[in-house]
């Protein structure tokens, strides 16, 4: 589908405070001396505090109606009022990803739309607006489908977006729903040809009899238009739901992983893919383990990892065999017998796996912890961070309301020194690997005051609750931060909370 939209800029004064600090050196975590400054956990204006850059409300389906002719009213369902803004279920952000330079930030939502934000360019007049992200392009990536053979709907929800490195003026990204991966090209157009012979200015055909002279069409500048076109559609290769896509470092291939299989694609070929992992048992009754996430090594194009619902990670080398059913490395931590319960397996299920930028480590997220593994040590992780251990005593209730199956993602910062993941009540957590300090922050409208610094939050586990603490029983489990992203080189983070996208930056003195 070809969608031509002028570059949109949200009315920034409408919702959120805007303030920019002069962009100087990188944040305290990336100090050039090599010893990163500690993450400040104390409230206040100290080094290492995070400030809100902007809160972006993805335009609802209603506002897009004027631009599109086809109205699918089915998308506008379950409307509810939240924080004085109308939010439809289709607007729930389901994935967030910066591109390789950090200039662009893409979000996918439950309604199958992709919205790309672009960083405001630094200008002499408005030096304070640097770092703000504005809408660059919006397009409908996937539509709901119906599988007639199984009488089941195929959701249009965008599960993952991955950018390709930029090789020319256009931007390319992969977006996927449960069944189909698409390669989108996003390009700018700021000139158009004028002076056709056979068409008039409105595009109507001219009567040839009226043409008496010939002229050469010329390119004239026009308002910037950003077009998104689907260049490839990779369909019909997955029986089960796609949970991950990963672009290979050779930039020629990528992989898509579903619950039981992983396929390797070439970008140019859409009617074939190689199956490189298949864990489907001959008898489905014997199925006890599924693939939950997969990723290519950032530098070695033959290496990838995939995680499972049993808390294991397998590293595979595609040079070893065509079908990588036998892993090269197997990462698993022995179970702690003192913590054993009926929920042990469920909470050990890995929801996300990410290579570090260096390629030396992998990070995994299970329900209660984030773990960092050294690729050279398979028997246990080198670091374990508790995200919200206070939930350990609530597992039965969380099982009952299905929250225990929530899939949280995790991200590295550009220098691999800090890791971040989300939690409930719109909290998200950052862990400094060097100083071992951590901080809990909240992405909420109430705390978005102009020039406000994010105040660290604390959950009170038991006993006396201090003034600013929140007790476990007061946590809102419907407000979950599943998707976050970290700028590849700067301390700018994007946090998705339902239909809101928060962008935070570290405060640089």
């Amino acid at each position: 589908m070809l969608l031509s939209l002028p570059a949109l800029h949200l009315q920034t004064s409408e919702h959120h405070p805007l303030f920019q600090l002069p962009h100087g050196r990188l944040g305290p975590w990336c100090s050039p001396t090599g010893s990163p400054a500690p993450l400040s956990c104390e409230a206040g204006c100290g080094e290492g505090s995070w400030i809100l850059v902007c809160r972006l409300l993805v335009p609802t389906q209603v506002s897009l109606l004027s631009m599109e002719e086809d109205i699918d009213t089915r998308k506008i369902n379950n409307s509810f009022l939240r924080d004085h803004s109308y939010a439809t279920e289709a607007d729930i952000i389901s994935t967030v990803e910066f591109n390789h330079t950090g200039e662009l930030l893409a979000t996918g939502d439950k309604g199958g739309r992709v919205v790309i934000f672009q960083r405001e360019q630094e200008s002499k007049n408005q030096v304070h607006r640097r770092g703000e992200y504005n809408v660059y392009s919006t397009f409908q990536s996937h539509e709901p489908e119906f599988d007639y053979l199984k009488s089941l709907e195929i959701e249009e929800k965008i599960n993952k977006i991955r950018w390709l490195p930029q090789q020319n003026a256009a931007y390319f990204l992969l977006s996927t729903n449960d069944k189909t991966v698409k390669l989108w090209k996003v390009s700018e157009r700021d000139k158009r040809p004028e002076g056709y012979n056979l068409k008039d200015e409105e595009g109507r055909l001219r009567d040839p009899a009226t043409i008496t002279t010939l002229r050469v069409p010329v390119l004239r500048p026009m308002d910037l238009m950003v077009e998104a076109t689907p260049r490839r559609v990779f369909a019909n290769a997955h029986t089960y739901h796609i949970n991950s896509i990963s672009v290979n470092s050779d930039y020629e291939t990528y992989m898509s992983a579903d619950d039981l299989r992983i396929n390797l694609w070439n970008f140019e070929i859409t009617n074939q893919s190689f199956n490189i992992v298949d864990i489907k048992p001959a008898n489905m009754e014997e199925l006890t383990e599924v693939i939950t996430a997969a990723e290519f090594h950032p530098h070695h194009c033959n290496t990838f990892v995939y995680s499972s619902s049993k808390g294991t990670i397998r590293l595979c080398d595609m040079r070893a065999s065509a079908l990588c059913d036998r892993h090269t490395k197997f990462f698993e931590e022995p179970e702690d017998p003192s913590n054993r319960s009926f929920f042990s397996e469920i909470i050990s299920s890995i929801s996300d796996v990410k290579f570090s930028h260096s390629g030396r480590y992998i990070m995994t997220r299970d329900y209660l912890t984030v773990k960092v593994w050294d690729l050279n040590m398979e028997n246990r992780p080198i670091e374990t961070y508790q995200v919200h251990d206070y939930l350990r005593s609530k597992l039965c209730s969380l099982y009952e309301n299905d929250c225990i199956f929530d899939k949280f993602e995790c991200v590295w910062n550009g220098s691999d020194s800090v890791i971040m993941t989300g939690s409930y009540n719109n909290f998200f957590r950052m862990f400094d690997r060097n100083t071992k300090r951590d901080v809990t922050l909240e992405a909420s409208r109430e705390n978005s005051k102009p020039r406000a610094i994010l105040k660290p939050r604390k959950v009170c586990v038991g006993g006396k609750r201090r003034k600013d603490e929140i007790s476990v029983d007061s946590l809102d489990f419907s407000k979950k931060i599943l998707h976050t992203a970290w700028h590849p080189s700067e301390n700018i983070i994007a946090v998705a909370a339902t239909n809101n996208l928060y962008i935070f930056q570290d405060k640089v003195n």
Partner: protein
Amino acid sequence: MFARGLKRKCDQEEVTEGFGTVPSYSLQRQSLLDMSLVKLQLCHMLVEPNLCRSVLIANTVRQIQEEMSRDGVWHPGAPQGAGRAPLDRLVSTEVLCRTARGPHGEQAVPESGESPSQTPAPGLCTVSLAQELRDPESGLWEMDSPRESRASFSKSLDQIFETLESKPPGSMEELLSDVESSYYDLDTVLTGVVSGSKPGLCGGLEGFTTAPSPPSSGCKSDLAELDHVVEILVET
């Protein structure tokens, strides 16, 4: 949505005099098993069920069942926890928070926890019906032999996993019969009564929440249905 208020209610009830304490481990385990079975069956059939979630729940169920048979709790026909009201078993949060009540009397109410023991196969139906007739007082929540339950459980599991597989279009009838039988299972699961209609998921749920008929009339309608089926078979 996490019921925030529920915990405070629990605390109050636990403290109140005369009501006993936190439910026993076996009670908790049993209600967890029931909750898991209900979760497995009540997949959102509009969209394909989440395979990862189903697998994790199924593993949890297996784990519980294995532990129960190791503990020797898995007896065919043995009354489980004298005087436990059958309704408690399905409303799991209430069970976990509420105290063990006294005997409610033998309301023979069909339980979805038991429904795996009632497979759609007519042969087994006869068996369970016969059991009901023989021993109505023991209540329908008594499990049949663990082997049967496991077989039927894994059969239900199989059906759930198979809906996710793309079947080769060998014959439309084959496909349709599979679909039909899975709906049929949902009904028997949720209402515990062999019924001719297939109301689908919502209907099944309604059948569960409303007060189901006592087994005596259920048995009668089952027998009548069985007769009808036999008549058809004999005639053809």
